[in-house]
């Protein structure tokens, strides 16, 4: 026999053998015990079934359209159909081996079994009729076989994946209706979703692994092979608990390794729920709120804080159109239809813009007007937002006379009216707002009205805010503002205080300002001589402030020319002698260039006047900073020259020398002149030498520093 023929013969014979085996298995189904290696073959059924499906379709293609593949059709057809049938047979056998295992409900799999068997038998008939050239019958059979293949396939898939597998994505009840914590049921809303997600795929109608169904309460209680899933008499030994608590490696651990596992939270939830008497009907709120189960369940709801609203969301375009720099409109949280509107920019606020929001009036859930100037009449517009929950009217300046218009906002839970001059009528109408959970009415007055409101609205949390308990605080000192502390003619000084209602009292004669000797500040003060200004602030309800002091010097007369006999020290030369007359007072930082320093030579200056001057006094402003070796001059000498006389020594002063280091101080040495025709003045300040014994630099040269010479 040619090779082909031999193979065909083998194939045909094997078909008969397979059929025989199948018959035995089908007839003797429940009575047969299979050795375990055949169970392995049985498990290859899902693999093997792909071959007959493809090959049967190809065979049908070739049968109906012989020229399609462009090959010798008779031979090819024989090959294809025979091999297809051979594989079909093996697949059916494997399926029959597999059916011996548990886990499948008889009814569901019987359909699949019979359609599969029919595929095999009718396929064989198709081959037989085709071989016998009875083409019309063969054609009819081929179509029936194809249809049966599809049916078998679908039924088989239902077995593995579940009945609704094909159309499941289109089914819309995937998302559970969101319930709040208060309304949730322990089993339906907390435990069942976990079972649905992780257990049902193998324990439901149509697929009953371990003979256990978990898709309905009755089946959970009924249980499976090893016992009831939840044993109401012996909760601790409920099968669910035993199985989920097995270590992952254990073969009985549920869910099986390789499938999605229970998370820690889910495990804890199931465990705590079962051990807490496994109530199927109880609401969460009926549980003891301290229990572990509730603590875990709360977490689940905490992340679902998202409230659900019954109204639809506004379009993103509308929302985007309502947003500008001074008004922000956005969803309260991602994907929420509820909108929150906030206004900014007091100066840009225009109450008529509230009407723009009419487009989203059903969606607005929060309105924030704080600090925007509103009138009572504008409240009417707000009353049009039926779903409003939070309304912030802090510091809007309303009196609240028509607050009553808002009382129909049934969803209003949070109302802030702080900082407004609320009228009596406002408080009266607030009494009707029993739907509020939080009310903020801090105004620092109306304490009685607030108290009575608290009794009228027992379910509302009312915040009255900071109450001034009458403690007296001390004001902070006033601020003294001036341009220069040394002036030639007049100086203007302004006193300021940040608290507007404050009165500032001051003195100009170096005495402490209080109620006896004060002058009340009413405008800039004009000074025309050397003055020490001291000021304090007073206000009702406050303690008087500490004082602030400022010293002013007048230097009316400036010499027309001046010359230093000795140049100042290199490091402290400022602008030379010019520094002494620039009316720029130095402070105790002697590096600033406003001070001239002399160490090796005394300070000696000759000042000339073109025309005789009437001079009353001359003052030298010096610095003493013993720690920096700067001492008061050991000698101050002043000579004058008048129109008629020559140089004569007018005054010698020996300033008091310190006996220890002190803080830095500024000192002034004044010499009275009182001459009317002075033409020149000469002055000399001699630095200390040697430094006194107590000083760390004893025996060395001291310094004298001078920053201004004031002549009046």
């Amino acid at each position, binding site marked *: 026999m040619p090779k082909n023929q031999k193979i065909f013969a083998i194939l045909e014979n094997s078909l008969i053998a397979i059929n025989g085996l199948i018959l035995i298995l089908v007839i003797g189904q429940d009575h047969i015990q299979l050795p375990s290696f055949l169970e392995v073959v049985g498990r290859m059924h899902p693999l093997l079934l792909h071959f007959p499906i493809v090959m049967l379709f190809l065979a049908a293609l070739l049968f109906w359209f012989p020229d399609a593949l462009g090959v010798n059709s008779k031979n090819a057809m024989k090959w294809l159909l025979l091999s297809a049938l051979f594989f079909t047979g093996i697949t059916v056998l494997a399926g029959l081996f597999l059916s011996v295992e548990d886990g499948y409900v008889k009814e569901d799999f019987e359909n699949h079994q019979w359609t599969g068997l029919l595929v095999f038998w009718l396929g064989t008939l198709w081959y037989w009729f085709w071989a016998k050239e009875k083409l019309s019958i063969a054609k009819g059979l081929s179509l029936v076989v194809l249809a049966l293949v599809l049916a078998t396939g679908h039924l088989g898939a239902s077995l593995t994946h579940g009945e609704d597998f094909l159309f499941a994505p289109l089914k819309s009840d995937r998302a559970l209706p969101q319930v709040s914590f208060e309304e949730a049921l322990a089993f339906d809303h907390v435990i069942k979703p976990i079972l649905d997600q992780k257990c049902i795929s193998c324990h439901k109608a149509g697929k009953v692994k371990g003979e256990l169904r978990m898709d309905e309460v009755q089946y959970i209680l009924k249980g499976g092979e090893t016992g009831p899933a939840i044993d109401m008499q012996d909760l601790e030994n409920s099968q669910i608990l035993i199985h989920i608590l097995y270590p992952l490696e254990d073969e009985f651990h549920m869910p099986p390794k390789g499938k999605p596992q229970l998370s820690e939270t889910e495990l804890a939830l199931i465990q705590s729920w079962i051990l807490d008497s496994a109530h199927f009907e109880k609401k969460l709120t009926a549980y003891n709120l301290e229990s572990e189960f509730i603590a875990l369940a709360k*977490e689940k709801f*905490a*992340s679902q*804080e*998202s409230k659900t609203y019954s109204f639809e969301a506004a379009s993103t375009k509308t929302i985007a159109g309502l947003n500008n*720099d*001074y008004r*922000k409109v956005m969803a*309260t*949280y*991602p994907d*929420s239809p509820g909108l929150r509107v*906030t206004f*900014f*920019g*007091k*100066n*840009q606020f225009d109450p008529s813009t509230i009407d723009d929001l009419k487009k989203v009036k059903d969606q607005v859930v929060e309105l924030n007007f*704080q*600090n925007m100037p509103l009138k009572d009449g504008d409240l009417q517009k707000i009353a049009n937002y039926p779903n409003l929950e939070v309304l*912030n009217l*802090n510091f809007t300046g309303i009196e609240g006379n028509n607050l009553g218009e808002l009382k129909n906002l049934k969803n209003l839970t*949070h109302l*802030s009216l*702080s*900082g407004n001059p609320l009228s009596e009528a406002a408080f009266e109408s607030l009494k009707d707002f029993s739907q509020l959970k*939080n009310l*903020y009415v*801090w105004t*620092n007055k109306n304490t009685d009205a607030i108290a009575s409101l608290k009794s009228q609205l027992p379910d509302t949390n009312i*915040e*009255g*805010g*900071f109450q*001034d308990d009458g*403690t007296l*605080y*001390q*004001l*902070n000192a006033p601020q003294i503002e001036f341009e220069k502390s040394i002036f030639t003619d007049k100086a203007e000084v302004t006193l300021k205080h*940040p*608290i*507007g*209602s404050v009165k500032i009292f001051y003195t100009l004669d170096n005495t402490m300002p209080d109620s006896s000797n004060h002058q009340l500040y009413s405008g800039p003060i004009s000074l025309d001589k050397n003055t020490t200004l001291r000021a304090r602030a007073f206000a009702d*309800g*406050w303690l008087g402030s500490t004082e602030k002091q400022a010293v002013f010097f007048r230097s009316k007369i400036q010499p027309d020319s001046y010359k230093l006999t000795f140049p100042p020290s290199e490091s402290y030369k400022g602008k030379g002698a010019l520094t002494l007359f620039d009316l720029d007072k130095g402070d105790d930082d002697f590096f600033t260039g406003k001070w001239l320093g002399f160490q090796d030579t005394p300070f000696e200056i000759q000042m000339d006047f073109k025309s005789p001057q009437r001079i009353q006094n001359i003052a030298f402003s010096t610095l003493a900073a013993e720690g920096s070796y700067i001492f008061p001059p050991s000698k101050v000498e002043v000579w004058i020259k008048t129109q008629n006389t020559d140089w004569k020594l007018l005054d010698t002063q020996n300033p008091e020398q310190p006996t220890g280091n002190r803080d830095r101080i500024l000192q002034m040495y004044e010499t009275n002149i009182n001459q009317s025709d002075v033409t020149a003045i000469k002055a000399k300040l001699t630095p200390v030498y040697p430094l006194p014994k107590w000083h760390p630099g004893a025996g060395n040269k001291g310094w004298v520093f001078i920053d201004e010479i004031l002549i009046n």
Partner: protein
Amino acid sequence: MEKEQSEYGLNENRRKFLSKVSLGIGSLALGSLLIPDLFKGKSGEDALMEALPHFAPKAKRVIYLFQNGAPSQLETFDYKPLLNQQVGQELPDSIRAGQRLTGMTAGQSSFPLVGSFFKFNQYGESRAWISEAFPYTSKVVDDICIIKSMHTEAINHDPALTFFQTGAQVGNRPSMGAWLSYGLGSENSNLPSFCVLLSRGKGNGQGVYSKLWTNGFLDSVHQGVQFSASEDPVLYLKDPKGMNREDRRRMLDKLAELNNLNYETFGDPEIQAKVQQYEMAFRMQTAVPEVTDIKSEPDSIIKMYGPDCLIPGTYAANCLLARKLSENGVRFVQLYHQGWDAHDNLPNQMVGQAKDVDQASAALITDLKQRGLLDETLVIWGGEFGRTNYCQGKIQVDNYGRDHHPRAFSIWMAGGGVKSGMVYGETDEFGYNIVENPVHVHDFQATILHLMGIDHERLTYKHLGRRYRLTDVHGKVVKDILV
């Protein structure tokens, strides 16, 4: 050959071309019908960022009162009477358990325990222990949640500050405020989303640096805006004489045109950031004077914060300004108060520092509460680490110092979704180790982000090849303190 030629010719004619093209376009159309978002084409990052906040936030804004220098928890909220009983005794090795020391005390031969000079009392319904240095805080104790079990790894100021603000001890990463600005932006587009206010205390101060409010590798629009401590918090905001607002607007428009030309040539995103910042400055010109006008505050507010609040640059003034900024939509306001680093002379310094901050911090909470804003504003008070229970240097009756201690310290949080009237976490009787509910800095940061509606693991930015997030690769939200 003819057949091939005619076939080739057929391939090239109009008919074939049109039919092929129509097939292609038709399939595109089909695609867009089936998948409406097909052409909206957002890149992964954009899609990620559009989804913020990740879930409903509790807090919309944060005010972070940072106590720079590290206030001693043993003098504020952690009452350890054992230390008062065992003054002068050595810190047991079992308690110290090998904690590394700073260079300042490593040379000490002994570590004498020293108890707090301040008396403690319990307050409020939470029965929290608060030292006598903080009388005002003790009055609002039922509004705050004190966390006594904070811990960190850093032992010196620079790395600890950086760790707190950026999530890592080395610099160059974005700060907390920058992350929030990047994630959530500002509610009020006329004000920056991240503001920083500094104040100096009289105690031993440590510096703060702009690294702590930097934008790191994020866009520079997310940088913290430091307000100046003077009457004019933002300098150069007023237009010069002779220029009015319309002129300014026209100038900015032309400037933006020039900048855009540059951008089109070089594509540098910093140019766009700059344009945005000019625009923001323009809007700030009107918004900032309105917001920072402290003089318009009613008397009772001034009394509540204390008269210091009128002196710009003080902590009280900054607290008041923080409330005003936050009320107007600034997402993250951070205050730094320096001077808590009491290595010696602690009792004296503590009195001064506490006086600076106590009244104003408590006033801030009351102020927000009475406006109904406390529920949506998260207020945090705390430093970068704690202080040791042993004395640095010699102990005297009323003069001692404490060194840095990272293993346990206390902070408090209020409002914004945090439980009120609660004390969380416990330290051992020596006040040295945590025994219950430790909260690491990363956990703290994760919790803040969670309260703002952000999953800390999902707010990321890709830089130099890998994604970064504020909490680095650590951090778990502390669920126990959330409402």
